[in-house]
Each structure stands twice: as C-alpha cells, then as structure tokens.
C-alpha cells in the first residue's frame, strides 16, 4: 500500500507506473502467502488494532520522501524476497510450487530499487531500512535458524544477511540491535503500529464513509 501511495508522486512518470505495478504485485503476493498459510493449516489471525498488524515499523507511516520509497524498495523488499526465496527452495512442497512466480516478479522490484539507490542520496533511509530488515530476519539461533536446520528454509540468518549485501552490492550498516525488546511475532523492536488512516482503509472503515446511510 505504501508503494501505491506514490503512484502519482514519484519523480518520473515511469517511476509512477512502476510504483503502481509493484504495489499490485505485492498485494497479489500477500494473497498467495495468506492462501499458502491457510493451506498449511494456519488459522486466520484477528486484526483489530494497529498493534495486531505484523508490519515492520518502516511501514507504520506514509513516506514523505522519495528516498524512503527507494530504501524500502531496495532493502526491505529484497529482504522479504530473500526470505521468499529461502521458502521456495526449502522442503515445504506447497511453498516450493506456489512461490516461484512471485520471485520472477520480485526480480523487477530489485532492478528498480537497486538502480534508484544509485541515483538518489538515501543514506539515512537505507540505514533505517537495513536495520529493520535485520530485525525482521531475526536473531541468530532463533526461529529462522531453526527452520533452516529442519530444511523448511534454504537459508539461515547469516546467509540471509550476507545475500542482502550481495544483492544490493553494498555493505550493511552495523547497528546495535536490542534483541531484548524484539517481538517474535511482529519481528520488530520498536513499539507502535500503522497510522489510523491506513488502518481505516485496510479494515474497510474509510470506504464506509462513502456508502449511503441505510434506512
């Protein structure tokens, strides 16, 4: 959704179109992931308030600078893609078969993000996105490494961090992460959640304002 917010605000018409297309891709990817979870027997979660959404803090608020879009596109999107890749190459058959198309589409997100990363000065935003990617991947010897050992994920935490650097052809900033305050479900250390306007939109509340009053 944050990508879609830039579909008429990016610096070039081509980037507007790419923002819209990547937003649509990612909505489709979410649907495939939720469908896969259901197929694997995970019950639907309840999402009542901002704190029940398992998003990274980077997505809590709309981005005000194009550099923030670029950093999310280059760093966070690639971190998510590497995890999808690790699942697609793991030993869970449902995921092996369903996630391949997603990776083909994500290739273009990588090309877009990496190229814009060379074009704009996004240092601070990149640092923040990288830190949150590391938090989202999780601590060493945690759940991700456990899933790697059991073969469900093709990569462990160290591999994922290294692959992110390789994919972006850059060295990761080395932030000190307070793993003590890390929330294992939301995979973040920072409290808070999505802004109210976005939450209303996600839950269909914004849409109701435009509906005629009943009776």
């Amino acid at each position, binding site marked *: 959704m944050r990508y879609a917010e830039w579909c008429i605000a990016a610096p070039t018409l*081509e980037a507007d179109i*790419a923002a819209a*297309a990547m937003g649509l891709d990612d909505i489709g990817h979410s649907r495939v992931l939720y469908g896969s979870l259901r197929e694997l027997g995970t019950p639907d979660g309840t999402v009542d308030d901002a704190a029940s959404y398992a998003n990274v803090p980077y997505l809590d608020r709309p981005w005000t600078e194009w550099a923030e879009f670029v950093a999310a596109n280059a760093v966070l999107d690639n971190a998510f893609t590497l995890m999808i890749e690790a699942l697609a190459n793991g030993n869970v058959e449902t995921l092996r078969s369903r996630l391949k198309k997603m990776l083909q589409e994500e290739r273009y997100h990588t090309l877009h993000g990496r*190229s814009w990363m060379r074009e704009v000065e996004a240092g601070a935003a990149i640092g923040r996105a990288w830190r949150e990617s590391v938090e989202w991947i999780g601590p060493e010897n945690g759940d991700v490494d456990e899933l790697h050992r059991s073969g469900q994920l093709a990569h462990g935490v160290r591999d994922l961090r290294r692959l992110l650097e390789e994919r972006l052809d850059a060295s990761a900033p080395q932030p000190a992460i307070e793993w003590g305050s890390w929330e294992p479900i939301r995979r973040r250390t920072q409290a808070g959640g999505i802004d109210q306007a976005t939450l209303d939109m996600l839950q269909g509340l914004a849409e109701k304002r435009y509906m005629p009053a009943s009776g």
Partner: protein
Amino acid sequence: MRYTRVHTDVHEYDVFARKTRVEPLHQVGSVVAPDDDLAMAYARATYDEERWVEMMIVPKAAIIPLWAPGGDN
C-alpha cells in the same frame, strides 16, 4: 536521442514483445531510463497489459536507421 530530466543522463529504449511463440516480436513502445536495470523494470511495469511470452528492450542508440519518413530518400 538523449534526455536530461530527473536523472542527469538517461537513454531511450525500444520495447519489443510477442504473445505467442509463432508470431514475430513487434515494437510495443519505449521507455526512458538512466540504465538497463531501470529500463527493464519500467518496460515490464508499463507494458504489462498482455500475457507476453517474450519481452526485450533495445537501446535506441543501438538501432541503425536505413531510411525514415521525412528523410531525404
């Protein structure tokens, strides 16, 4: 042709695609980008309206024109 816009130095690329293996590639449009990576991302995002079996981009600078409307011949 070279443009100067948001990026300091950009290039124009022609986009070619086809829907089936038996038809030839044809030009579906063009994109402007600073490098091949971004040109690929733009071409795919902009001309994604069909289920193409093949898509490629060619830097316009690599095309050698023989004649064209408005030319001498």
